[in-house]
């Protein structure tokens, strides 16, 4: 008996019980579809996170004052450290070859006023390299000049959220806002950047020269952050190491003392996010395994019922010359087809939903062809695995007994 007639018999039997065949494959169908969607969601959010990390600034290394500790999955500064200064920033820029640009940075949440409007926003002080290091692009106007920084001019470049809160639809360029009773002239507006990896709005920002900030807002000499742009991705690690050594020396830290600063590079953040992604991947694999197992048990149950119901048919086939192997093959093909059917429909549903959600649902989903490939083979495997027992059971039936079973 050749493969095609076995297949033909299996297909005929399945077509005779369309509803049951569909129900048997339903478990596999849902399992495969959900795995495909979950993998797509995982990939999509991973991509989103990577985009955000890249958007924070290319080859970025952040020097934070004080020791940073991870709390609730996020890095937070602990304590109040006053040792980080603009001099550190200048030395990093001047002495480390792998560093391209440096932006010392200080910020504070304050109320800004325009006419009768007032809004809570982040007032930040930095140098002219800040937009380049942090990858802020100008929508209109200009960034303040070297001269503005030197003379501590009261000029500001403003983010889109702050624009909306203060000006509404009005053009902010050339307008004057008041922060802490002091007027600042808006000379530029940043393009929107969205949220960072901690979910904070990066557009709720009023950027003024660092010198102005130190004199008018903070009245201090230390800063809390230095943004450093390494010359290339390859050099991030090397630059980090050199910055670390330089700062320890500059802060006169002896070997027995801990760092009073924390370096976080783009690579560190990527690594951190990767951990989350890997956990998500493990979760997906677990769920996929369970749903495929459930699907397989569905096939097993239906095939056992099918064998029981068709005992007489098995007897008839054996009487006219079917071998045990023929019977095994017939039932194995049936479960294999159920598996493939569930897998095929599952892939179709999963891919369809993924594309639909991307198109209409405004989700970022990325189809993973590997997951589809693996899923297809998994359901064939499940079909065979859970079909073997019923098939062997069918073939072991005594033909004489099978024929006399009602």
């Amino acid at each position, binding site marked *: 008996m050749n493969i095609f007639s076995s297949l033909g018999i299996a297909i*005929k039997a399945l077509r005779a019980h369309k509803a049951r065949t569909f129900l048997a494959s339903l478990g596999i169908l849902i399992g495969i579809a959900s795995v495909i969607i979950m993998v797509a969601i995982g990939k999509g959010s991973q991509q989103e996170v990577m985009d955000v990390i890249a958007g924070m600034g290319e080859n970025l290394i952040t020097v934070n004052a004080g020791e940073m500790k991870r709390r609730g999955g996020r890095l937070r500064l602990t304590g109040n450290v006053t040792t980080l200064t603009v001099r550190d920033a200048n030395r990093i820029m001047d002495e480390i070859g792998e560093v391209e640009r440096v932006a010392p940075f200080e910020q504070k949440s304050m109320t800004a006023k325009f006419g009768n409007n007032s809004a809570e926003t982040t007032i930040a002080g930095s140098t002219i390299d800040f937009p380049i290091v942090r990858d802020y692009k100008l929508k209109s106007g200009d960034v303040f000049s070297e001269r503005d920084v030197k003379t501590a001019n009261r000029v500001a470049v403003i983010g889109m959220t702050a624009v909306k809160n203060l000006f509404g639809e009005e053009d902010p360029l050339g307008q004057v806002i008041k922060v802490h009773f002091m007027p600042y002239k808006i000379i530029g507006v940043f393009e929107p950047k969205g949220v960072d990896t901690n979910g904070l709005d990066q557009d709720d920002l009023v950027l003024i020269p660092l010198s102005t900030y130190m004199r008018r807002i903070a009245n201090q000499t230390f800063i809390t952050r230095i943004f450093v742009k390494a010359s290339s991705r390859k050099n991030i690690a090397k630059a980090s190491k050199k910055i670390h050594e330089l700062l320890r020396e500059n802060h006169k830290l002896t070997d027995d003392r801990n760092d009073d600063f924390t370096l976080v590079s783009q690579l560190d953040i990527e690594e951190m996010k990767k951990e989350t992604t890997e956990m998500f991947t493990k979760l997906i694999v677990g769920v996929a395994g369970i749903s495929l197992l459930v699907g397989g048990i569905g096939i097993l149950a239906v095939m056992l019922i099918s064998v029981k119901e068709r005992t007489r048919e098995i007897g008839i086939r*054996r*009487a*006219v010359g079917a*071998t045990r*192997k*023929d019977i095994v093959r017939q039932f194995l093909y049936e479960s294999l087809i159920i598996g493939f059917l569930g897998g095929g429909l599952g892939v179709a549903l999963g891919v369809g939903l993924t594309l639909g959600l991307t198109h209409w649902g405004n989700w970022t989903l990325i189809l993973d062809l590997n997951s589809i490939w693996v899923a297809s083979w998994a359901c064939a495997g499940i079909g065979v695995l859970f079909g073997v027992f019923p098939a062997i059971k069918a073939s072991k039936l005594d033909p004489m007994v099978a024929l006399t079973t009602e």
Partner: protein
Amino acid sequence: MNLIEMNSICKSYRNIGFETKVLKDVTLHIKEGDYVGIIGPSGAGKSTLMAIMGCLAQPTSGEYILDGEQVGKLNDRKLSRVRNEKIGFVFQAFHLLPGVSALENVTLPLVYAKNPPGNIKERARELLAKVGLEHRLHHTPGQLSGGEQQRVTIARSLISDPRIILADEPTGNLDSKNGIETMKTFDSLVKEGKTIILITHDQEVAQHAGRIISILDGQIASDSEVNHEAQTRSL
């Protein structure tokens, strides 16, 4: 030459430690072209004897030579081949595949044949015409009467052109008219040279055979030739 040669066949079933002997030392020879009726009350071992003869079961001990081949010790694959090529079954309950057309039911044995002939459909059609069902080719068993179903079964038993037809109570589920028709078909098959073994509890049906073997309690109680001419005279 003996087509069927059974020597000291025993068959016992083991059931929860108890051994039930169904056939006890049955020795039986059947020649090619014979028309044999096997009679006996239910539980006498008729069905078991038929199962062994039809290669649906293996004897516990003894020797079974079918068409010159020792089949008592064959493996499943070879035994299935013997069933497929040398034996045609006609059952009391017809045993047709439900939901499948008469034509496909008739061709079923050839699905499992090692070297199926090319003109399968044509042969099946001829056989169905032979049993008077040329107008029912595409009907499923459910759409056929009992008599018609039995005729499909007979057509199926002939598709592989087997040497032996094993009929187990072929008239048991039929009314007398269809029963007589079925027996006439067997009579004509004997004339074509087939060996027919008829298992029945019905004396009248058994009278069609040329030789009647009666089974009692797992053993052969009597084995006699039937003198048809003597019968006709007495009627």
